[in-house]
């Protein structure tokens, strides 16, 4: 049986670990609340831009390369994970989603191009020998549009240049604090345009084509930003749950160890008494 001192030490170290996980749990929950608010602030912009894209795409004969599907030779995957671990299976699941997406398309490593957001994704795909064209590391917890613009623009640019024929985003969609859904979403070509909600028929100045030229890249970039906000909220939620579990486990462990400690102490006392009694009996 473990000695009293050893058990005491383990209790103390578990206690201090649980203090840290408890603090991380609280930090993540406040970050999650802010990330959720950010995601809400972005909604009006998204709705508006979707409205206009729908109005133009449905209302005119204007066409644009970004709207046209072409045979897929190369696919770009924008994988959104985080910079740090300690978030349960968050990073693993985002990465796995990308791998599954590749398998679904029967693609080999050289048919895939990776845009990694977050150090975990970047390191994983680099180590596995994928073609990581661009990665964005060290994003703040509450990212602004400008933070993601470069990588989004590169992806959109490569698509328009014809270097890639499809862009897919793999990220965690935030449902609520306890559930995140890992999903893949096709970014380009844009095929899932909702039917126009407004029946206004617009005049285009100078022309429908030229507006699409400006509008579609902006639309695609903002979709990437939307996914990032979504993923950030999920990341904080995942970390919150992971830290909550860690704290609970630590508490349970402390309880078990305390029982063990008390038992060991009792055994020591009993033994001491037995020895004294035995000693006294020997003298008689």
């Amino acid at each position: 049986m473990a000695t009293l001192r050893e058990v005491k030490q383990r209790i103390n170290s578990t206690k201090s670990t649980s203090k840290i996980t408890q603090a991380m749990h609280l930090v993540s929950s406040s970050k999650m609340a802010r990330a959720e608010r950010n995601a809400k602030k972005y909604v009006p912009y998204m709705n508006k831009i979707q409205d206009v894209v729908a109005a133009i795409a449905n209302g005119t004969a204007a066409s644009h390369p970004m709207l046209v599907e072409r045979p897929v030779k190369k696919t770009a995957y924008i994988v959104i994970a985080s910079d740090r671990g300690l978030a349960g299976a968050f990073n693993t699941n985002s990465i796995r989603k990308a791998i599954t997406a590749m398998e679904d398309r029967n693609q080999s490593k050289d048919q895939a191009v990776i845009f990694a957001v977050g150090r975990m994704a970047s390191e994983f795909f680099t180590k596995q020998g994928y073609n990581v064209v661009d990665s964005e590391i060290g994003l703040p917890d509450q990212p602004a549009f400008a933070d993601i613009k470069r990588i989004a623009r590169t992806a959109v640019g490569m698509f328009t240049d014809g270097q890639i024929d499809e862009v897919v985003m793999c990220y965690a969609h935030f449902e609520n604090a306890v559930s995140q859904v890992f999903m893949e979403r096709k970014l380009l070509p844009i095929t899932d345009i909702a039917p126009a909600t407004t029946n206004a028929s617009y005049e285009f100045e100078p022309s429908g084509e030229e507006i699409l030229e400006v509008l579609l890249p902006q639309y695609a970039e903002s979709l990437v930003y939307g996914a990032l906000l979504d993923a950030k909220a999920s990341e904080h939620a995942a970390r919150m749950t992971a830290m909550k579990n860690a704290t609970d486990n630590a508490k349970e462990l402390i309880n078990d160890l305390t029982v063990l400690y008390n038992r060991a102490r009792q055994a020591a006392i009993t033994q001491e008494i037995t020895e004294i009694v035995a000693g006294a009996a020997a003298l008689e």
Partner: protein
Amino acid sequence: MKTTVVNIVTPDGPVYDSAAAMVSVRATSGEMGILPGHIPTVAPLAIGIVRVKTADNKTELVAVTGGFVEIRPEQVTILSPSAEVAEDIDLARAKEALKRAEQRLQAKKDGIDVKRAELALNRAINRINVKEGNI
């Protein structure tokens, strides 16, 4: 007096929301003045100043960096990657950005993206103009 609602929205949230008697924006095809009751129109914007004339005849300025404007008879919506109202602009930072962009253009080293530097220059000039009220 008839007014139209003006909304300026960016991915980081709404920036401006108010009623206006007239709005002028700089579209890529030229300056555009919008009065209430304008026919529905969509136009892309250049980096420039949005001037909003309120019902009590004051003029408010907002710096926008491209994007586009969607006009409906009773509503004008401007969607831009980033936008700032005059009060929010940090003049020192804008001047800093201006200096940086100028230096980069002057250095003309290989490998610098001239177009990007020019865009950065335009954005900085635009923000300084809005802040100082030079129209």
